[in-house]
């Protein structure tokens, strides 16, 4: 599966929304349920699903999809 599709599936799980669609421009502001608590859950779920590990400050700042995808590709997960 493409990293985009995989991420989208994960977002659907985490936000419990089967119709959620992602684009590279999507950010936390575009998804109403993406608050600070959901962000922590999301980042942890991404780590588990893709077998990657964010640095502490990356955990805090990774709030748009394009960046996330770049990060995953750079770790060889894309």
């Amino acid at each position, binding site marked *: 599966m493409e990293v985009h599709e995989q991420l989208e599936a994960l977002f659907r799980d*985490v936000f419990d929304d089967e119709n959620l669609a992602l684009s590279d421009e999507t950010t936390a502001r575009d998804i109403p349920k993406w608050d600070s*608590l959901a962000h*922590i859950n999301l980042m*942890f779920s991404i780590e588990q699903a893709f077998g990657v590990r964010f640095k502490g400050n990356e*955990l805090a700042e990774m709030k748009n999809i394009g960046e996330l995808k770049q990060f995953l590709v750079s770790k060889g997960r894309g």
Partner: protein
Amino acid sequence: MAERFIARVSDSAALMTRADELRKSGKVGDAIPLYLEALSDPPQAALCLKLARSYEELGNISEACRWALAVVDAEDDFTSWQAAARLVQRFPLEARPKQRIAKVALLGSYTTTQLGQMLSLAASRRGIRIEVQESQYGQYEQDIIDPNSRLYAFDPDFVVLAVHEGDLRLPEYSSAPQESIGVEVARWTALWRTVRERSRARVVQHNFAVPCDVPAGHLAARLPGSRYMMAQAVNARLGEEAGSAVSIVDCDRLSSFVGKARWFDPRFWHLAKQAVALEVVPMLARHTAAVIGADLGLSRKCLVLDLDNTLWGGVIAEDGLAGIKLGDGVDGEAFVAFQEYILKLKQKGVILAVCSKNNHGDAMLPFEKHPEMRLKRDDFAVFVANWEPKPQNIRRIAQELGIGMDALVFVDDNPVEREAMRQFAPEVEVVPIPEDPSYYLRALSQCLSFETSSYTQEDAARAEQYRARAKIRELESAAGSIEEFYQSLHMQAIVAPFDAVNLPRIAQLIGKTNQFNLTTKRHGIPQLESFVKDPRCIHLYLRLRDRFADHGLVALIIALQEGTVLDIDTWLMSCRVIGRTVEATIMEQVCRRAQELGCTSLRGTYIPSEKNAMAEEAYAKVGFDLAGRVDGQVTWTYDLLAKGPIVNRFVETVDAWEVKDGGA
């Protein structure tokens, strides 16, 4: 834990993909059988979720709920747990299985939102529907100390103190460690006391997972004044102070079990004040739910064991005594270790039973002749070896022991038997045993259903009592008339008012007795203490012994005087002494005390519940007359003036146990 999974991984992935495609094209009904076929043992969490969602799409909410809850048994996978928790929340209450209800106040020193959600899910799996109230971040002391806080307005059944080591007020080094420890322990015990004084809640304390980043290094382990040693001392002291009044979740052990490097993830602490790494929150939730379950009396009582390849390696009927693996070699030693662990469970009060597909003679052979057997025939209350289906045999075992199917835990190396049990006897808990016997012990030790809230003499003697019961069943069929049978038991009872020593056992009995329980009122210890102080209240417990065993504290009654009428608020009896005329003995003492209070009649009420149909005629059997029925509730009355006290000639009431010769 990879070793827990059984094969089929490769084709299960293919099946899942195919099923996903079917579901996408709208054929949910066709996808489900493929998902089911892809299941491993224990089930994969992601697959449980897919099944839950598929059933939800089909509108079969009760199956959807069952599969969402199965995630708890599957893996401690945070993402799946979150999704499952949300699914279950969404389902209407009536679709969920019948559950005990409990209000839980979650008071934390760190961010506990995720723990709260997962605690609800884990509790739901244990048959408890909990309503969680979370304290404001880090406000646990304020909430407890302020009598007008939300905490007390919520009126919780449980107060869970979810706290972490960073919150301990201990210096990195103390020159007066005993004093430092004492002050910190006193802070916690004062909080416990305040909760108990101001509410009916039971405190569940998370103890402190001690971190491994220790500046003094190995030296810290011999410096009583190091924070490292003081934190461990606080844990030990809190355990001593807790006694039977407070429950502890041993977080230090849990963090050691998974590894401290996993338990503590500093990134999440710095970012979001998560003191417990998210990946272990499901485990912490499971254990906290198990402790709450034990406090509610939901522990399981009996471990049902297969024999071949479960207690020894190989098949006794084929390999013979000399051929089975037991004692020698890696597997042989593993089976011995497993047996020894089971023996320890028995010593703490778990009843053991055998359920094996074997000829009875073959099954008995190792017990009679093999020198390395740690478990003996007498360790088992019931021994069933035949060729009937196991779900059928396990029903028989439950009946013979007089306990519910929901009190059983089943261990079998054969995944087919485990699956049969899940399908045909879903109330039974099935332990997912791995293929390698070296890991049997660990799999069993991770089964949390044998958690108990207190350790009473009754618990220690229970296995003996159940074995005695099975013997009595034999005697019953041999004895002539039922009167002769009762006489032959030489039953004696002590009937006395509640006292402090027996209160924990009384509360335990009130919490867990479902069948012979006339009103199913779950009074907690504070309520019981107020009964004891009330001069208009008659409160009696009954201990029973016979020539086979001391059955311990098995029945109790609480009644309140209303003028000349004595109204019975609570009357219950442990199932293991049903059919022994004990009912009449406790009533005999109630009658005598009612007369002393000047009462002329007794009034009893039967409130039907899911499980107490067996007690419907209890009042009729001891001589009460039907007085009325309203909304299923039945009222009974006993005219003390006209009929005189109830008498039971089969049980001798004594003040204390006399020493008898030739008991069992």
